[in-house]
């Protein structure tokens, strides 16, 4: 952590977005995580994404569980709602919050311990239900707060800081999320904001369960030779399948690309994901192919990144449950208790 607050002085070229805020306005408190933690870079990417999306901070709800990653929401978008929940139980709280107020933008921030160990069950169900959210796992493969034991996402055979090899199979959060029904799944790396920021923007705009697995090296306990979650390893083994440009519907498309090099995915709300192909031909809307490609990457020791799967026409929890269109907290007594005539009508329909 840092003893001084980040100075309020800023670069003279800093500009305000359409919401009237500068990028600095989306910052939170100064991080108390270890210096060099990948989580801080992810926080910076979230700040950038929120700024670029012209988001009103008070319309964001940040929820997290327990762990280094779950401290992170303090460090971005300070003027938003936050809930630091019970270990592994953030998905339940987020589901409930989302049910109560569907108008907020939900961001779940969790770690590999919080989501893949104690919270694995909750993780599976929040994806199944299609809660409209952006769920980010800051994945470093170790339990940092307890000094570096392997987490459930540590690759089999990777070496701990003490020199021990991991004997257990790893849980691949991306594969799991796709199988459980998430409708937007990507993977990225904290050290590559050019890839990460557009992915977060697209995920936040996606009207369904969006999941991002972000490899985020733990400088203190998992950044050594033999680790498969270190800065060097991820840089050397990063297989980026695509670069994504997220285009909001209200913006006119002015640039054109060669047809062979880009793939356009138009989402239900009209927003556009423009995927620039990098090398191989990859179609992220094909679920079976996506699972196959991700698994192939795992076997080859690659860190496959990019937008890996997207369902352009997702349906979310509220659609599935056929809830009212407005947040439940805006319903007043006459709406909730419409009186005897309404009751009579219902009773009559059941006779």
């Amino acid at each position: 952590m840092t003893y001084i607050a980040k100075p309020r002085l800023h670069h003279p070229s800093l500009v305000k977005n359409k919401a009237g805020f500068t990028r600095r306005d989306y910052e939170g408190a100064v991080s108390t995580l270890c210096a060099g933690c990948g989580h801080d870079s992810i926080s910076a990417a979230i700040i950038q994404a929120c700024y670029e999306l012209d988001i009103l901070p008070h319309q964001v709800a940040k929820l997290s569980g327990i762990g280094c990653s779950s401290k992170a929401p303090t460090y971005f978008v300070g003027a938003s709602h936050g809930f630091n929940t019970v270990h592994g139980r953030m998905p339940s709280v987020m589901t409930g919050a989302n049910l109560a107020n569907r108008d907020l933008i939900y961001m779940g921030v969790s770690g590999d311990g919080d989501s893949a160990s104690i919270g694995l069950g909750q993780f599976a169900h929040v994806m199944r239900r299609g809660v409209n959210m952006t769920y980010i796992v800051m994945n470093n493969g170790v339990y940092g707060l307890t000094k570096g034991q392997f987490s459930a996402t540590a690759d089999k055979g990777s070496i701990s800081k003490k020199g021990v090899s991991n004997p257990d199979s790893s849980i691949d959060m991306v594969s799991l999320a796709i199988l459980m029904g998430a409708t937007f799944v990507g993977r990225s790396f904290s050290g590559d904001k050019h890839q990460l920021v557009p992915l977060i923007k697209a995920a936040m705009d996606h009207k369904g369960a969006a999941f991002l697995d972000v490899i985020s090296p733990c400088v203190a306990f998992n950044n050594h030779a033999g680790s498969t979650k270190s800065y060097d390893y991820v840089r050397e083994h990063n297989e980026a399948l695509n670069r994504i440009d997220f285009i909001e519907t209200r913006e006119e498309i002015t640039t054109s690309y060669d047809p062979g090099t880009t793939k356009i995915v138009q989402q239900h709300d009209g927003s556009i994901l423009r995927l620039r192909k990098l090398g191989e031909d990859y179609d992220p809307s094909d679920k079976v192919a996506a699972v196959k490609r991700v698994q192939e990457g795992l076997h080859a020791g690659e860190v496959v990144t990019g937008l890996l799967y997207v369902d352009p026409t997702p349906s979310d929890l509220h659609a599935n449950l056929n809830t009212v269109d407005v947040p439940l907290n805006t319903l007043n007594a006459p709406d909730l208790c419409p009186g005897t005539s309404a009751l009579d009508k219902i009773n009559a329909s059941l006779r």
Partner: protein
Amino acid sequence: MLKPTDIANPDYFHKVVDCQWACPAHTPVPEYIRLIAHGRYSDAYMINWKSNVFPGILGRTCDRPCEPACRRSRVEDENLVKGKKEPVAICRLKRVAADYKDDDDINSKMPKAPEKNGRRVACIGGGPSSLTVARDLAVLGYEIVIYDQDPKLGGFIRTQIPHFRLPESVIDEEVGYITGIGNVEFRHQRVDSLKAVLAEGYDAVFVGSGAPRGRDLDVPGRKEAAANIHIGLDWLSSVSFGHIDKVGKRVIVLGGGNTAMDCCRTARRLGGEDVKVIVRSGFDEMKASPWEKEDAIGEDIPILNMLVPKEVRHEGGKIKGVLFEKVVAKYDDKGRRSLVPSGEPDEFHECDDVLVAIGQENAFPWIEKDAGIEFDKWGLPQLNEKTFASTHPKVFFGGDAAFGPKNIIWAAAHGHEAATSIHKMLIGENPEERPAPGVNVASQKMGIHEWSYDNAPTIDHRLKVPHRPKQEALKDIMAEVELGFDPQLAFKEAQRCLNCDVQTVFSGQLCIECDACVDICPMDCITFTENGEEKELRTRLTAPAMNPTQDLYIGAGLKTQRVMVKDEDVCLHCGLCAERCPTGAWDMRKYYIEMTHAEHACRKQ
């Protein structure tokens, strides 16, 4: 492709310390400002004394080339500080060191002349450049003889700057520190012949005779009304020595420089009630420093612009007033300005006295044509710009006598250079080889989050120096107008300094490219990217680097073959990059850079 920055070259980080780089004498400004904040006024004074010789005098009168350069004025946010962007009040902080120093401590720190080395150096003129030469050489054992026509040393410092801006006691004190070294003899004697001085067998002669001639007005009526038309320079000098103690009620001051400002404010104190400054140029183009114009206006002196004197009206040998032609500025294709009549009717201003402060000139009537000194077409000596050597092997120039009228701080800088040249010549070294500055590098890291300097920048607005109430100030020509910062104000102002001499030093081999520095930097100064051509690179940084006068720091040695690019322009030197760096690839290191004077002139480049 940009080459990695060579931080072993002392100029690189020197340039980052904008104030020090801009100071002609390269005073280590942030270091003495920190000492002032710590209440170590004597130490702050000595740093200044070494660099610019006249801290108390300059702290009141300097032209402050450091302040427009100050980084603070580029990084402040008008909304945060509630006012316009302003530099640190460097000049007035310098005065604090002089005001609050411990005189006994200073006296014990002053050098004493060693045994005479048998060499004799003459200094012609008793102003700041000569005094600097005397100081630098006296401590080496040289015998110095200073000639001046006035009864006391100080030159223009004493004769031209009114005592309400610079009390005479301050001049006496700081001249005294130089003569007190020993081996410095003052001869109250006007020099009428360079040859005669050379004939006295000096090993070297330094000419620091200034630019003593005030330019005269050349319009009809000048001669007839001569009794009430005074050359500003001479008039101020007469006031300074007490020969003049009153002036007419209505005074016109012609000219837009600092001398004009001193004339008009002096006139206000000698009985002038309706005093105005009338200038050919526009207000913004006036040569006077903005704060001096401000002070004059504050004393109810209007400044009238775009008026060219046409004729002095008089009656029976008595002045009536001055007629002015109204002009407008026209610019040609090359951007050169000319003042052309506007066609409007002429303006007449009544007055009892006119003070002419329309410029000053060099004059060397005492240098014989065959003395071996070549002059250029502007009447200035032909000099080696590095060594200040003239075409005569033994004669050196400095101060206003060298390149025309400048300021005290330039005179001190010239004096240092000339003294170095004289010393090198006399010990048989080549004066062309200039000594490198001394550089002392020290990491400021005290702990994981602790630095040995105050790294949190304040957002306080620049503080104003308290002034004596106007009515009181105008009554007494000896009463100093500026009262100076007191220690509390000085501390607050000193904390505005960004400590630009505490440098961000990057070691690429240690960097793991985790982006922690990029993410924390409040000014978006740092980028990790592919190398490229400078112009193009400047556009694709985290924040664009639009100030081409400020360098990009290029760090190489990264595993990804990218480069670290840091835009020095708006760095706050807050140390957060180093604090958030997990590997120590960034460190905050103080570069104390000190110019080398004659004392260590044998230090090789």
